[in-house]
């Protein structure tokens, strides 16, 4: 007997509301307006959760995944089109999309395979520096900087695989923390890579076209960040699509067993080392690609953008979103990137407030905003 499918409407309404809210938040300049918007959104989510609307949205998303994923992409494109000539909101959107891509990588590591990685920002930085080196020192086509960035991050990460496979728990954490500090120190003292001043990336050219100049399109001048938002969105869609497929497949199932109980997984014939290598490498490659695109976009990178503190922010994002939930990670990435930028009044105090907020979440809602749900063997019919 077929149950009636949940309606598409609540999901579409949620996506639409999200898009309108994003436009309003990115437009708001007055501090009181930003505050009111955030308070309103918090109240609205609380009300939605209280009156069962959240469940209706969840059911709708489960039942119409494909349509709603497309709707989200359309919504991001619509918001991009809305801000077609404003640099700052577009830059923020692209940064959110790139952070979200990195956090999807970390989700694979933390959430699926259960491997800690406190060097997320370092792998992002490896990608960024690879892009800078490709543009500055080589004749490689600049578009290839993005896959090369991912490749470099994955390759450098493979140096850590042996210690990471042999160690457990806190000992694994120290391997990645040591790597994060090593990487930042190395970038700071290496003169070829610009030392503490970092590197400038000039004259990016893709097939003879310079994406870092404003472009004309039917008589309308577009901000050059439009290109990067679209590129970052494409990268995010690729990362999300592949990771989602992986999660749903037997690969994801194997990763889950490795995380939940290594001994049992090994007893059932899973090669633990293999799955950990897969998860670690895939996560680092995503971070590296996102970093490379970031470097091309901002045109200037320095070791201070890729510190241990930044890695911690990335870890906090996935924790805030709910470890293992891709949508949660993306939502949290948006919150964590945009809020401090919009709350200029708290700019000076933002790290303080932000750290305090994460502590409160850990104490009172340790599962994060959107906890990962149980695996649904047939999506939509949980």
């Amino acid at each position, binding site marked *: 007997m077929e149950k009636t499918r949940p309606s598409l409407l609540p999901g579409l309404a949620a996506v639409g509301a999200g898009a309108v809210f994003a436009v309003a938040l990115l437009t708001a300049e007055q501090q009181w307006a930003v505050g009111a918007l955030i308070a309103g959104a918090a109240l609205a989510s609380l009300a939605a959760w209280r009156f069962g609307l959240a469940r209706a949205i969840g059911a709708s998303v489960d039942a119409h995944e494909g349509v709603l994923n497309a709707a989200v992409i359309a919504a991001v494109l619509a918001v991009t089109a809305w801000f077609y000539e404003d640099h700052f909101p577009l830059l923020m959107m692209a940064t959110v999309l790139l952070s979200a891509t990195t956090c999807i990588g970390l989700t694979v590591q*933390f959430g699926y395979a259960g491997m*800690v990685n406190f060097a997320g920002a370092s792998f992002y930085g490896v990608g960024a520096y690879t892009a800078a080196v490709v543009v500055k020192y080589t004749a490689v086509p600049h578009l290839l900087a993005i896959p090369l960035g991912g490749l470099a991050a994955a390759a450098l990460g493979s140096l*850590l695989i*042996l*210690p990471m496979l*042999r*160690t*457990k*728990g*806190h*000992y694994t*954490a*120290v*391997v990645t*923390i*040591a*790597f994060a*500090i*090593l990487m930042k*120190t*190395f970038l*700071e*003292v290496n003169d070829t890579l610009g030392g503490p001043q970092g590197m400038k990336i000039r004259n990016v050219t893709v097939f003879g076209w310079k994406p870092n100049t404003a472009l004309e399109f039917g008589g309308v001048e577009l901000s050059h960040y439009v290109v990067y938002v679209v590129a970052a969105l494409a990268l995010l869609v690729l990362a999300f699509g592949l990771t989602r497929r992986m999660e749903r497949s037997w690969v994801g199932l194997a990763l889950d067993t490795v995380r939940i109980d290594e*001994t049992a997984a090994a007893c059932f014939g899973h090669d633990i080392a293999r799955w950990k290598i897969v998860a670690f490498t895939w996560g680092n490659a995503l971070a590296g690609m996102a970093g490379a695109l970031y470097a091309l976009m901002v045109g200037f990178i320095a070791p201070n953008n890729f510190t*241990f*503190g930044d890695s*911690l922010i990335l*870890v*906090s994002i996935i*924790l805030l979103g709910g470890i293992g939930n891709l949508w949660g990670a993306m939502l949290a990435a948006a919150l964590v990137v945009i809020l401090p930028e919009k709350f200029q009044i708290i700019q*000076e*105090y933002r*790290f*303080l407030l*932000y*750290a*305090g907020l*994460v*502590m409160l979440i*850990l*104490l009172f809602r*340790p599962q994060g905003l959107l906890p990962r749900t149980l695996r649904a063997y047939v999506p939509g019919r949980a």
Partner: protein
Amino acid sequence: MDIGLFGQYVVNGVMLGMMYALVAVGFTLFFGVLDVIKFSHGDVLMVGTFAGLATYLGLQAAGVASPLVQVIGVTAMAVGSMALLGALIARYLVMPLRSAPPLNTLLITLMLGTVLREGVRLFYPEGANPKPFPRLLPADSIAFGSFTVRADSAILLLAGLAVIVALNLVINRTKLGLAIRAVAQDEETARCMGINFTLIVLVTFAIGSGVAAFAGVMNGLYYNEINFGMGLLLGVAGFSAAIIGGLGNIYGAILGGFLFAALQTIGAVALPFASAYKDVFAYAVVIAIMAWRPSGLIAEKTSERV
């Protein structure tokens, strides 16, 4: 290299090693009783050092000019206030998360570290700038041929050694130490034997944090300058030291501390590349050691039960 310069490097390295060891001992003690990593440890050290500096300024304003009284007051205040802070952190942040995944504890203490660091930067008067730390110890030189040791370095080294020895005696020779070791070995059995678990955990956190504050004051007296970021570096170095030594083992922590300082010193002076790479070298060796001995040089004796 002449012997005087060599001696200087050795003194520097030993001093650093002493500080790392004192920090690492805290990590290993906390791990022993609760199986958690408290990452705010380095920042607690930093806050303790600033508390010491404030005490010095207070004593100065109150007209107490004797350096001896001042150094005792500064140390007592730093150690005492951080012992209290450590116990509070354990009670209100670490113990409530006992049933949560270890990652959450690690994160909450990391965030607490950020809060402490930012708190000092924003709310301590001119906290964002490096602060001069007073020279409270006699600075006469003691010469051995071409090799001279400043008296304050010698006093600091002896004081650090005394703290390590005293801590060792407390852990291994007193009833309190016995209780700490019992809790570390098996919480439930320890409770059955009438040990007040919460009290022992709080006392352990107080001891560890007090020792870290002592290391912070040592750091201030040795370098005569402190800043709000000093805790992060000392914390990470101390954590690495505790890990390469092997968590849960106080000798491992001491060994790890001196080993890490030795690596940094060797990286700075004895290797062919620029001394700026000393941290790169030290952390690379840490990673290599983890690959070689995955649970530290002095590994915990455990067997996994399935």
